[in-house]
């Protein structure tokens, strides 16, 4: 088991960051009338961990006995039948799914599948009616239609079902949904908190950490706890005993983007653009999301640029990412950004150096 899973705290009392939120969540579920919850915050900040611990708090250890299923639903949509496939993770009292996985048909998941799940009400051994919990991941990726469909379901079946929604970017969740939930913001842990977790894991694994080693990993983690723990484990695999100057390996794809940035700075020509296109494809094929590529590329370029160009370049990054969202082929927009950059930079060079 990877350390990220092995050292994921199981209960609200065991968490090492967000302790205050964990204690608050505990209070929240003492009563039966807990509202719907929306967890939001950057990836790797600890949302999933808190949600899992919360389920355990509500339902006891049965919440951990989950089964993973690939299920197919047949949905009659007027004249045609649609088949939807989704992976669900469920225990007796809860079901977890990512409705956005089915793409543009996500509203059927909300209208048919989720509504069905929300309707039926679990009854406990003593015959009391309880409620079940539906965990929906990546709600920020749901289409508007699907989000609208969710609104009334959240009200209508609130006696039998609580929703726990999880997302990175709460700006993309409609106001209608946000106002029907208690919003729980999970911020990225600070570097000090990350160090604390790394040292804890180090101790459990019986490792000697040179001074400042954990701090260096934390610094490179971009405040993502997941990322910090993953690179800590990679370091362990690469070299142990640790040395104080041991390199913290960057992610492969990041190195690759960094090379692309250097390429662009070195030469601005159609030929180069063509080569870079191939490299961008390579990244996309390896399932690096295009907006992540664009942001990383911007990050690398900003490091190398004069103050006056930074404004312009970051504007175009925002511009092309937006276009990418509206369009369908990410590669076009990534390439357009690179081309735009080349032309700006070339003009700048000519103006400055003649």
């Amino acid at each position, binding site marked *: 088991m990877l350390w990220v899973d092995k050292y994921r705290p199981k209960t609200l009392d065991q968490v090492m960051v967000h302790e205050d939120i964990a204690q608050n969540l505990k209070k929240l579920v003492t009563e*039966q*009338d807990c509202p719907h919850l929306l967890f939001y915050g950057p990836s790797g900040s600890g949302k999933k961990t808190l949600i899992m611990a919360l389920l355990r708090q509500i339902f006891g250890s049965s919440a951990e006995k989950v089964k993973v299923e690939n299920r197919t639903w047949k949905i009659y949509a007027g004249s045609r039948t649609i088949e939807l496939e989704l992976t669900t993770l469920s225990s007796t009292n809860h079901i977890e799914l990512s409705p956005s996985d089915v793409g543009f048909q996500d509203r059927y998941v909300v209208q048919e599948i989720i509504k069905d799940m929300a309707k039926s009400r679990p009854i406990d051994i003593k015959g009391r009616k309880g409620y079940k919990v539906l965990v929906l991941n990546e709600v920020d990726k749901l289409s508007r239609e699907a989000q609208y469909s969710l*609104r009334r379901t959240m009200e209508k079946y609130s006696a039998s079902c609580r929703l726990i929604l999880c997302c990175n970017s709460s*700006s993309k969740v409609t106001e209608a949904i946000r*106002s029907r939930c*208690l919003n729980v913001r999970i911020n990225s842990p600070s570097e000090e908190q990350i160090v604390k977790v790394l040292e804890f894991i180090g101790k459990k694994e019986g490792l000697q950490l040179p001074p400042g080693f954990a701090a260096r990993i934390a610094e490179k983690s971009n405040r993502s706890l997941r990322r910090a723990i993953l690179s800590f484990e990679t370091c362990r695999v690469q070299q142990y005993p640790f040395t104080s100057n041991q390199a913290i390996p960057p992610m492969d794809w990041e190195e690759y983007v960094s090379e692309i940035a250097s390429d662009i700075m070195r030469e601005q020509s159609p030929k180069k653009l063509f080569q870079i296109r191939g490299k961008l494809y390579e990244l996309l094929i390896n399932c690096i999301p295009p907006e992540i590529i664009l942001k990383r590329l911007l990050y690398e370029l900003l490091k190398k640029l004069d103050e006056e160009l930074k*404004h312009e370049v970051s504007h175009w990054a*925002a511009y092309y990412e*937006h276009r990418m969202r509206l369009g369908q082929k990410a590669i076009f927009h990534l390439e357009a950004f690179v081309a735009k950059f080349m032309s700006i930079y070339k003009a700048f060079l000519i103006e400055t150096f003649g």
Partner: protein
Amino acid sequence: MAPELQSSQPWVEKYRPKQVKDVAHQDEVVRVLTNTLETSNCPHMLFYGPPGTGKTTTALAIAHQLFGPELYKSRVLELNASDDRGINVVRTKIKDFAAVAVRSGQHGGAYPCPPYKIIILDEADSMTEDAQNALRRTMESYSKITRFFFLCNYISRIIEPLASRCAKFRFKPLSGEIVSNRILHICNEEGLSLDAEALSTLSSISQGDLRRAITYLQGAARLFGSTILSKDLLSVSGVIPQEFVDALYAACKSGDFDLANKEVNNVIAEGYPVSQMLVQLFDVVVEADDVSDEQKARICKSLAAADKCLVDGADEYLQLLDVASNTMQALCNMPQEFSYES
């Protein structure tokens, strides 16, 4: 709506008025519907207005008061955006429901039980135009025995032929006073104490949306105990603490791009919604005395553009960085030599 379950429902449901007369602030519609209860006359209705102002509440209340619990199921059809409301469903489901004749002489005891059925189309603005068109004919063919209630946020999304057949009622955002009264009522029932400052904070952050106000109140009560302070409410509402907004604004003023970038990164890492940051940044800019109108205009233009992009699903970091960069250029009177039109 079964009463036995109420205690386990979130407060928004628990405190949903069950009778038309308890709907606050929407006097006109309450007057018309009170009349309906006496005379049983009811036109088709169109309720429109912002969220959390009582549209669904009012429609459900009148339906319950007209038919009572026994007949409710056979006389009232509630369809909302969580139901598939494509053309076919409109054609079949609504027709099937409308077509079954109302048996006369059916009595619901103390309830008026007028001789028609009610079809509530909640969130009607998310129906396609085609589906709305399909409804026209249904509405006409069954006009004697059905009454339609259309509920929506935006009246402009309801096609004219439907809208023109209805009595239209605009649901106004609730006034601060009304919100406060409802909230105090709930506090009373739940044994909470809320001081004057907290109460005014709550009505200002909920902006006339009572659903939001109640959700925040319950969140704060569960998280921070039965004495609720203004800051507890702010923390559950997602309002960004002013120091973050000020830090970003100061960074823009400094003219140092890297500093602004750092602040933007910080906002993202803290998980604050960028859409909310834009709102609060707007307030700071508009109120600043040392910023010229022209500078303000430049900044607001950029805020508006970013807001639109976010609605389209654009990346939060890139949009905020762009706003910060534009704000900096405006505040520091940097010329925009390059044109942003592509």
